[in-house]
């Protein structure tokens, strides 16, 4: 099936970004296609390429890796401006875009799952 994912919270503060990652990994393992992961509101902070958690899971790198595997991972441009998250901070294989990307994932998906607080 085609599944889309929305993430509404940033890394570490809430479990949402972790849950989204584990869900996506399990969906891929079951052979599903992820139409896209849209990082919205504080969720954009998961796209930060400079995350360096000493001795802990790197949530930023996880989303970057999903991007490297060909899954569209997109952070909301407007939310990024509100949070001082600049284009040069975006991790590899992740990009900034508008709500059109969210609409596209919704349109293409058989299922859509949101993780937030």
């Amino acid at each position, binding site marked *: 099936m085609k599944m889309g994912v929305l993430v509404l919270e940033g890394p570490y503060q809430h479990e949402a970004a972790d849950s989204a990652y584990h869900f996506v990994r399990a969906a891929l393992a079951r052979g599903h296609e992820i139409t896209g992961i849209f990082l919205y509101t504080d969720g954009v902070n998961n796209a930060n390429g400079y995350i360096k958690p000493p001795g802990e899971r790197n949530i930023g790198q996880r989303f970057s890796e999903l991007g490297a595997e060909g899954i569209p991972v997109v952070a909301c441009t407007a939310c990024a401006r509100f949070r001082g998250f600049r284009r040069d901070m975006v991790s590899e294989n992740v990009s900034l875009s508008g709500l059109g990307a969210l609409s596209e994932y919704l349109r293409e998906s058989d299922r859509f799952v949101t*993780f937030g607080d």
Partner: protein
Amino acid sequence: MLYTINKSPLMFGNLKSVLRVAPTGDPILLYEDGVYAAVKGAASEDLLAAAVADHPLYALKADLDARGLVSLADGVQVIDYDGFVELVEQHQVVPWL
């Protein structure tokens, strides 16, 4: 549809509120702090029993294990992330955040 709950039952009204909307027979998944509703002997057990009476009720293993929750109320089905995805294959999702 699959209704999902990620908040603890004694400090948040989410589980109580979802029971007013979710149609009988629709499954409910407890994950993140939502899994605290699955434990035996808590003051939320009546609420859990009401949920179990009308809905297939699941709790996510990784979140139960993290929180050290082993003694679960009757009727709770423990699933892993693979099972979460399987439920999503079968149902559209209503995240009751």
